């Protein structure tokens, strides 16, 4: 009886005119009854694809996906925070460049520049870095990351940040 009803429904299923509850029944019967499957494929070969039921996904792959998504969300959040912290530094850097450029232009115009510039600034910077001790600037609880700041206390704008895995020793 069911098989008879099924065969009468094939045309309506293919034409997309079958109501949803009957459609569901049709798909279930298609998977379960090999005789009806044969006759359905004779009438419409593309019904082969309606026989593909939900294949279970691997739990490991799902867990890996969840970990990757949440890891990326946390990384993005951290990067946004760091970006916000970098802004004062960028403003200071832009201001410093303008001052230095202005000074050079002034000295060039007034003829005060002779020879080459001495790397005084670089030497000073190297010296500061050698003496600076790292401080944990941001430590995000429960997240496998720490952000260290290398800077002297008087000039926070020139901080250099390192994102470090706590499993590693500095």
């Amino acid at each position: 009886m069911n098989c008879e009803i099924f065969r009468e429904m094939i045309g309506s299923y293919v034409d997309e005119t079958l109501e949803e509850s009957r459609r569901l029944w049709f798909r279930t019967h298609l998977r379960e009854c090999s005789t009806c499957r044969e006759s359905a494929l004779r009438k419409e070969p593309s019904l082969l694809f309606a026989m593909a039921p939900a294949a279970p996904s691997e739990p490991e792959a799902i867990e890996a996906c969840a970990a990757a998504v949440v890891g990326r969300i946390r990384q993005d959040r951290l990067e946004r925070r760091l970006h916000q912290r970098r802004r004062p530094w960028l403003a200071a850097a832009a201001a410093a460049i303008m001052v230095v450029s202005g000074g050079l232009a002034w000295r060039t115009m007034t003829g005060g520049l002779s020879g080459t510039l001495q790397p005084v600034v670089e030497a000073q910077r190297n010296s500061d870095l050698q003496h600076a001790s790292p401080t944990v600037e941001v430590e995000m609880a429960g997240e496998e990351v720490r952000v260290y700041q290398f800077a002297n206390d008087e000039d926070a704008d020139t901080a250099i940040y390192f994102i470090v895995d706590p499993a590693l020793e500095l």
Partner: protein
Amino acid sequence: MNDHQWIQSAKNGDEDAYAELVRRHSGGLHRAVARILADDTEAWDVVQIAFLKAWQKLDRYNPRYSFSTWLYRIGTNLAIDFLRSRSSRERAHKAGTEQRLRLVGTGEGAGARADSSEADNVLQQLVGVLTPQQRSAFVLREMEGLETAEVAEVLGCSATTVRNHIFQARKALRRELRVRFPEYLPASERG
């Protein structure tokens, strides 16, 4: 907890709640995207991007629709974009790499014994004859069993357009099956 409660927690910044939503929905989304792309590994990349986009747009999620439908919409659109960008690369070496599927059922009435993985394998070989929209509509409706209205919501088109995509997809697949996979046709249908 149901989806709505997890979503509410996630909206308040609870990443663990969002991880739970990923666990619940990534399997189904992956299966659909993998069928559209005909590639299991690329599908996981698309699924991850879809969940990241969904996180960024969580405030704009309309609870009138199911979370699953909303995700399918994001994932399917990404898959369609992916297919478009991939098509030019594929064209370059398609002729060389296309493989003939090793068929299990080559005898009488193979179709009657066909199982789900065979249907997936055959689709993987034939899906290239469909446009990205036809692929998506056909996979969501015929293989994932979504209702026409849901498919229309996912693809952002009318139910009539969905039916048209499915009609065209079925026609193209029918033709290709007859030519390339006569094993799946009843004996009386084979040439």
